[in-house]
C-alpha cells in the first residue's frame, strides 16, 4: 500500500477505473497517512473515516457494476471547513460555529459527490477565512509538511498541508484575497482561483461576497483541471454564477506556450520580495521564454491604490455579514478577527462606494493590459513560509509583519475577478516557491495551459 497516497489524482483515477486499485484501498492509504502525520500537521478539523469508508465501498460497488461517474470516481478528497456538509460539523475555523451541523451540502460538495468523490472530512483554516497565515486561536496552527516549524499560509491552511502531505488527493479551498494560492505556494502544490462566477459559492460561509471565490487545490496542474471541471458550472442558487458552458480543461492542457504573449508587471509584485523567490520566478520566466512565450514588461498604474480599495471592500463586507453575531457573541471570536471586524464596522459608506468605483477603474486598467498580453506572471507569495513563531519577516526592502506578505501579490486578482493559479517553481530557504499565472476572465484554459507547460519544464517531463 506504501506510495498509493502519493499518486496524483489523475494517476489514482486511472488505477481505479482499470480496477487495479479500489477506492477502499485509496481511502485506507489516506487514513493511514493521516494517522501517521496529522497529529503534527493539524490539517483535519473533522475526520469522517467511517463515512469515507462507506462512500468508498459504494463507489467500488458501482465500478464493479460497470458504472463510472468520471475522473473523480472513488477519489478521496478533503474539504475546507467553511463548505457546508449535510450532517457533518462545519466550523469555518471558528468557535462560534463549533457545533454547527448543516442540513444541506454546499453546491460544490454536492457536485463532488455526484462526480463520485469520497470525502475524508473537513480541513482546518484561518478563523472565518479572515487572515492568511496558518494560525487559528481555537484549534491551533496548521504546520507545513516541508518543515513543521513553519506555517502553511492561509486561509486554506489545512487544504495546503493535507494535499502536500498526501493525506488526500485534492481539496476545495476558498480565496478572497489569496487564500487558495497562498497556501498552495507555501506548501508546494497547485492552487487555482477561477473567474468570479465560474464556481458556485452557495453553501460556503462567506467572507466578502464581491471577492469570494472557490477553487481546486491539488498536487498537479492536471489534477486541478479535473477538479475544476467537476466544480464549475451554473448554479441557480448562486446569483453570481455564470451560465457559460464548462470547457474540458484537462483535455486542453498540452498546447504549450509558443506564441503566447506573457506580461511581467513592473509594479508591486517585485517589491518586498525575498531575493531567492525573485530568482526562482525570474528563472521560470526565462525558461518559458525559451519554450516560445513572448515575454514583455507591462505597467499597471492602478496597483497604486489597489490595497486601499481591497481594504475598504473586504473589511466592510465582512463586517456586514458578521454584524448580528458581533452584537450578540463578539466574545466568541478570536482577538485578531474580532478587531478586523470591528474595523470593518467603522468603514464609511462613501469610502466603500468609492472603493467599488475605483475597483472598476482597476479592472479597466487590467483589461487594457490583457489586450496586450495573454497572461501575467508574478511570484505568488513574495517570501517562503515563515516560522510559526515569526511575527516579522525581513527582506531587502525592510521588515514587515508576516501577514503583510501573504496576499500582497494575490489580492488584486480577487478584485478583477479574473483567474489566477499558483504552481510550484523551486525553493527558497529550502521551502516551496509559487509562480502565479493570471489570465483574462473566463480563460482558465490559458492559465492552466501555461501552468502545465511550466510544470513539464520544471519536472523535466
Amino acid at each position, binding site marked *: 500500500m506504501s506510495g498509493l497516497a502519493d499518486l496524483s489524482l489523475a494517476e489514482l483515477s486511472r488505477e481505479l477505473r482499470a480496477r487495479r486499485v479500489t477506492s477502499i484501498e485509496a481511502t485506507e492509504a489516506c487514513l493511514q497517512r493521516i494517522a501517521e502525520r496529522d497529529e503534527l500537521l493539524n490539517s483535519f478539523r473533522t475526520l469522517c473515516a467511517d463515512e469515507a469508508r462507506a462512500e468508498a465501498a459504494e463507489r467500488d460497488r458501482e465500478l464493479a457494476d460497470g458504472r463510472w461517474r468520471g475522473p473523480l470516481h472513488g477519489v478521496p478528497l478533503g474539504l475546507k471547513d467553511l463548505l457546508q456538509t449535510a450532517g457533518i460539523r462545519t466550523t469555518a475555523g471558528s468557535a462560534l460555529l463549533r457545533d454547527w451541523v448543516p442540513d444541506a451540502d454546499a453546491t460544490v460538495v454536492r457536485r463532488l459527490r455526484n462526480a463520485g468523490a469520497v470525502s475524508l472530512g473537513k480541513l482546518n483554516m484561518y478563523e472565518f477565512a479572515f487572515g492568511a497565515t496558518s494560525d487559528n486561536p481555537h484549534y491551533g496552527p496548521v504546520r507545513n509538511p516541508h518543515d513543521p516549524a513553519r506555517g502553511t499560509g492561509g486561509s486554506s491552511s489545512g487544504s495546503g498541508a493535507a494535499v502536500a502531505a498526501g493525506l488526500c488527493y485534492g481539496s476545495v479551498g476558498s480565496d478572497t484575497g489569496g487564500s487558495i494560492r497562498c497556501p498552495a505556494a507555501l506548501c508546494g502544490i497547485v492552487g487555482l482561483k477561477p*473567474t*468570479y*462566477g465560474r464556481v458556485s459559492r452557495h453553501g460556503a460561509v462567506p467572507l466578502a*461576497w*464581491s*471577492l469570494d471565490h472557490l477553487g481546486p487545490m491539488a498536487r498537479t496542474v492536471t489534477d486541478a483541471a479535473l477538479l475544476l471541471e467537476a466544480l464549475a458550472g451554473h448554479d441557480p442558487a448562486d*446569483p*453570481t454564477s*455564470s451560465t*457559460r458552458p464548462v470547457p474540458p480543461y484537462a483535455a486542453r492542457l498540452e498546447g504549450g506556450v509558443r506564441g503566447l504573449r506573457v506580461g511581467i508587471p513592473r509594479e508591486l509584485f517585485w517589491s518586498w520580495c525575498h531575493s531567492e523567490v525573485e530568482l526562482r520566478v525570474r528563472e521560470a520566466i526565462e525558461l518559458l521564454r525559451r519554450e516560445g512565450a513572448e515575454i514583455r514588461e507591462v505597467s499597471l498604474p492602478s496597483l497604486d*491604490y489597489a*490595497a*486601499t*480599495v481591497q*481594504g*475598504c*471592500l473586504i*473589511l466592510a*463586507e465582512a463586517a456586514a455579514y458578521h*454584524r448580528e453575531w*458581533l*452584537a*450578540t*457573541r*463578539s*466574545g466568541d471570536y478570536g*482577538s485578531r478577527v*474580532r*478587531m478586523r471586524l*470591528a*474595523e470593518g*464596522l*467603522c*468603514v*464609511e459608506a462613501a*469610502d466603500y462606494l*468609492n*472603493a*467599488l*468605483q*475605483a*475597483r*472598476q*477603474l482597476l*479592472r479597466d486598467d487590467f483589461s487594457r493590459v490583457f489586450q496586450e498580453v495573454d497572461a501575467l506572471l508574478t511570484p505568488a507569495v513574495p517570501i517562503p513560509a515563515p516560522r510559526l513563531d515569526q511575527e516579522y519577516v525581513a527582506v531587502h526592502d525592510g521588515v514587515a509583519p508576516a501577514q503583510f506578505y501573504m496576499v500582497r501579490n494575490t489580492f488584486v486578482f480577487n*478584485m*478583477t*475577478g*479574473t483567474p489566477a493559479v499558483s504552481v510550484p517553481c523551486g525553493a527558497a530557504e529550502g521551502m516551496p516557491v509559487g509562480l502565479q499565472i493570471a489570465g483574462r*476572465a*473566463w480563460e482558465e484554459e490559458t492559465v492552466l495551459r501555461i501552468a502545465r507547460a511550466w510544470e513539464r519544464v520544471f519536472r523535466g517531463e
Partner: protein
Amino acid sequence: MRAEIERRLRDALSDPLSPEELAEIAERVGFLRQQAARLCELPLREVDPAFGPVEAGRE
C-alpha cells in the same frame, strides 16, 4: 478618532474591547480613511454608476 470609534463600537459589540484593542483599531481606521480619501483624486465620476459588486468578473 478614538472617541468616535469607541462610540460606534460600544453598542455594536456584545463584549467590550480592551483599551489596547481600541487604540489599535482607531489607528488602523484613521489610516484607512486617510488612504480612502485619496481615492477621490481618481476619475470616479467616469465610472458607470450602475456598476455593482456582483458584476466583478462577470460577462
